[in-house]
C-alpha cells in the first residue's frame, strides 16, 4: 500500500467512478424516455380505437405512464446526487493540498453543481408528491 500510494491518484479513481455513474444516469433517462414514447404511442392508438367507457380506464393508464416517467427521472437524479457526493469527496482531498487557487475555482464550480442537483431533486420530488395527491383525490 505504502509503495503503491505515490503512483495512485485518488482524483483519477473517483473521476472514473463518477464517469461510469454519469453513463448509468444517462442510460436510465434514455430508457425512461424511450419507454414513455412507446407506451404513449400505444395509449394513443388504443384510445383512438376504444369506446367512451374504455377511455376512463385509459386515463388512469396515462397517469401511470407519467408517474413511471417521473420516477425514472428521479432515479437518474439520485445517480447524479451520488456522483456529486463523490465529487465533494475530491474537494476535501484538495483542501489538504497547498494549491489554494485551483481549490477555490473547482470548489465553487462543483459546489454550485452540487446545490443545483440537490435543488432539482427536491423540486421534482415535490412535484411528484403533488401529482400523487392530485391523482389519489
Amino acid at each position, binding site marked *: 500500500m505504502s509503495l503503491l500510494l505515490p503512483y495512485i491518484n485518488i482524483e483519477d479513481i473517483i473521476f472514473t467512478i463518477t464517469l461510469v455513474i454519469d453513463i448509468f444516469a444517462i442510460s436510465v433517462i434514455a430508457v425512461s424516455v424511450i419507454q414513455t414514447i412507446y407506451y404513449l404511442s400505444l395509449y394513443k392508438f388504443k384510445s383512438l380505437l376504444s369506446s367512451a367507457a374504455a377511455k376512463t380506464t385509459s386515463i388512469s393508464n396515462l397517469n401511470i405512464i407519467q408517474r413511471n416517467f417521473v420516477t425514472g427521472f428521479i*432515479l437518474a437524479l*439520485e445517480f447524479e446526487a451520488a456522483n456529486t457526493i463523490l465529487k465533494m469527496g475530491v474537494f476535501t482531498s484538495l483542501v489538504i493540498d497547498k494549491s489554494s487557487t485551483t481549490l477555490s475555482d473547482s470548489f465553487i464550480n462543483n459546489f454550485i453543481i452540487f446545490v443545483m442537483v440537490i435543488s432539482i431533486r427536491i423540486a421534482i420530488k415535490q412535484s411528484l408528491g403533488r401529482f400523487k395527491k392530485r391523482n389519489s383525490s
Partner: protein
Amino acid sequence: MDGIVIVAIAQEGLLRGTGTENQSPLVSEVTESFLVPYINYLTFGIDIAAGLIIGLSAIFALISFIKILIKPIKEQTQSKETIRLNLTRGMLLALDFEIGSDILKTILLPSVRELTILAAIVGIRIVLSWSLSKEIERHSTVIKEET
C-alpha cells in the same frame, strides 16, 4: 503502534530537552514523519471505500433497473422507488465514511481558512445525511402503508 512510537519519541525529547524551544521542533518532526503519512493512508483508504460503496450501489441499482424492465408498467414504478431507496442507503453509508475521513483530515490542516472550508463541507454532508435518512424513513412508511 505508531501512537506508542510517537509517545516514546516525545518522552525522549522531553527528557533530553533543555527547554520548550527544543521540544517543539521534535514534536513537529514526529508529526511530520509518522502522523501525516499515517492519516494520509487512512483517509485515502476511507475515500476509496466510499467511492467503491457508491460505485457498487450504482451498479446494483442499474442491474435492478434492467431487471424490472420486463415487468408491467405499474409494477415498474413501485420497483423504481425501491431501487432508489437502496441507492440512497448506499449514498448514506458512503457519506458517513466521507464524514469520518473529513474528521481525520482536520488533524492535518494548519490554517483557519482551510479548517473553515472543511467545517462547511462537513456541515453540508451532515445536513444531507440527515435529509436522506428522513427520506428513507418516509418512504419506508409509505411502502408499508401501500402493502
